[in-house]
């Protein structure tokens, strides 16, 4: 039997905006006059409800993600949502895929907040440390040209601040802190598990493998995820160990319907919103200068040209299904596709497993989660 962990993914979209064809971008410049706080309050309530429900349904964990100035995700401060989820649950693990270190003036703040969440939750926190998307550099004063450097220095500082007794002095290239001595210290020792999410840039994959951090691949085609995971396994071997399935997570929206036909009919508009509107992002917002090294920028352009890859918002529903950006279908189809994630890709963790997708209404999301838990989870658990 293939084994998989199922984590509910939550980005908190705000779907009531014009379609992707009508806007330059769902990020950075989409006028926030489209945001109605009364609608937002209902959405936050629904999204939180889904996180709480995930525990009752036996999910392995929930993931909350950070995004800025965007209708794709209205959770600029994911630690706040994590705190709300922690307060209303008992056992479920909570991964914060956020705390975009280069965007913050003081990485110690992230160390403090995650440690606080860890103590509050009784040691249930996973720290998914990120650089922030390219778009975030148009929504903050941070310079994309120092993003990679600041990320790794921030990471090194945070992990040391958690694992080592303070006070100690930090004399970095980007941060100087004479007294690193955070209170509280995290409950999980030496520190909460760290995940590194990415979109496939080789340098991130290799460094994740070196540190044995689970690598989480975000919204990509099946073959592309496979290439990234192969690279991770190879890097692990070069470091003298074999990568375990629990080190490979893929974020893929999943929807189980009562039948094949019903699943597609019900999921389609919301999958289309997610990719074709929520991810309507022009290239100049994705890749601000210096956000990638010249080498990985060249590699990305080369891969896109060679495989004629489209941007997310250009993909049709059929392409999204065919290339496995999403998994939609009856119980049997979904089990088959998920088995492939395990057997072909070697993944051990699926994020976004049957949770909210794009513009999906709350009731439909809940029904999808229930079918997922009742009909699919048992196939991957002993």
């Amino acid at each position, binding site marked *: 039997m293939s084994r998989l962990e199922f984590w509910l993914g939550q980005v908190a979209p705000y779907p009531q905006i014009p379609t992707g064809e009508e806007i330059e971008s769902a990020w*950075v*410049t989409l006028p926030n006059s489209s945001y109605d706080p009364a609608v937002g309050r209902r959405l936050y309530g629904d999204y939180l409800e889904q996180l709480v429900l995930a525990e009752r349904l036996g999910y392995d964990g929930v993931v909350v993600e950070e995004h800025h100035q965007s209708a794709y995700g209205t959770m600029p401060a994911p630690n706040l949502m994590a705190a709300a989820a922690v307060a209303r649950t008992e056992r479920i693990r909570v991964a914060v895929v956020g705390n975009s270190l280069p965007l913050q003036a003081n990485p110690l703040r992230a160390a403090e907040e995650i440690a606080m969440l860890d103590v509050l939750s009784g040691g249930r926190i996973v720290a998914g440390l990120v650089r922030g998307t390219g778009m975030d550099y*148009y929504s903050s*004063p*941070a*310079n*994309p*040209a*120092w993003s990679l450097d600041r990320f790794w220095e921030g990471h090194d500082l945070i992990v040391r601040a958690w694992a080592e007794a303070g006070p100690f002095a930090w004399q970095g290239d980007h941060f100087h802190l004479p007294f690193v001595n955070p209170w509280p210290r995290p409950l999980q020792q030496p520190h909460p598990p760290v995940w590194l999410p990415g979109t496939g840039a080789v340098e991130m994959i290799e460094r994740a493998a070196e540190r044995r951090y689970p690598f989480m691949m975000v919204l990509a085609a099946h073959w592309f995820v496979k290439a990234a995971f192969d690279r991770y396994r190879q890097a692990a071997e070069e470091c003298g160990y074999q990568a375990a399935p629990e080190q490979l997570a893929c974020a893929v929206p999943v929807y189980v319907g009562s039948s094949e036909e019903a699943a597609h009919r019900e999921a389609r508009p919301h999958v289309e919103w997610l990719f074709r509107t929520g991810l309507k992002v*022009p290239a*100049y*917002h994705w*890749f*601000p*200068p*210096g956000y*990638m090294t*010249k*080498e990985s*920028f*060249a590699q990305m*352009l*080369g891969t896109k*040209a060679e495989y004629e890859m489209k941007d997310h918002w250009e993909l049709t529903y059929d392409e999204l299904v065919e290339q496995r950006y999403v998994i939609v279908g009856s119980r049997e189809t979904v089990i088959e596709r998920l088995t492939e994630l395990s057997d072909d890709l070697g993944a051990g963790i699926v994020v976004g497993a049957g949770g909210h997708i794009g513009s999906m209404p709350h009731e439909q999301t809940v029904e999808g989660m229930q079918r997922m838990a009742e009909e699919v989870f048992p196939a991957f658990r002993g």
Partner: protein
Amino acid sequence: MAAVPRPRHFYTEPERLDVGEVRVAYRRKGEGQPVLYLHGNGFTRMWLPFHDKLAESVDLIAPEHPGYGETPMPDWLGGFDDLVLHYDEMLDRLELDTVHVVGYSLGGWIAAELAAFYPRRLRSLTLMCPAGLRVPGQPAPNLIAMTTEAVWETLFEDPSAAESVMPDYESMEEVVHLYGEATAFARLAWNPQYDLALERRLRRVDCPVLVVRAEHDRVIPDAVADRYAELLGARIERVAGTGHALAVEQPDAAAALVLGHVAEAA
């Protein structure tokens, strides 16, 4: 890293000069007063009709900034002070005690910094559509967050004038190269896109200064050029029939103003 790609037109083989550990690519032509020309955030690797026009009357020295054209990006590039020291050292290597300095756009900002830090090295200063000062209420449009089509429309008054200098966006090597140049720009001027200290420091400049602005500059607000002229007590000239890319759109008129100013100050 592969060799630096060449533009479709106006490429000439540069000379090389080691400045510190940076192998600077530069072009030099002409006789007479030495004029250091500092380019903007683009039009690299090219010897344009504007350069030729200047080189008919002066000794024109046109280096490519670290991270631009064929001058590699050094790890240390992080701010305008790095460039000021770099150009001070380059002038030493060229054995030129004093020069006329002409800076266009981003290069105007660099030139202004150089003049503020090393006022005694300058015989004259010409700022063409310079960047570098804040004018409250008039933020410059963000050229980095635009399609390439929109960028070129914004740069020029007459987009057909852009044809010969437009990069080949079909070439992946060129696109990657331009991403590298944009990275150098980000290191210098992502945030903030002005230097408040420069306002205070400009009073140190004690050579004749000319500010040249374009009739229809949609990249840098006219108020920036006006502010430079005000702070420097400088004459300001306006070139008609051009957008921000005045050295390409009106090379003769722009060169005539520069040469007139150099001759007057010599």
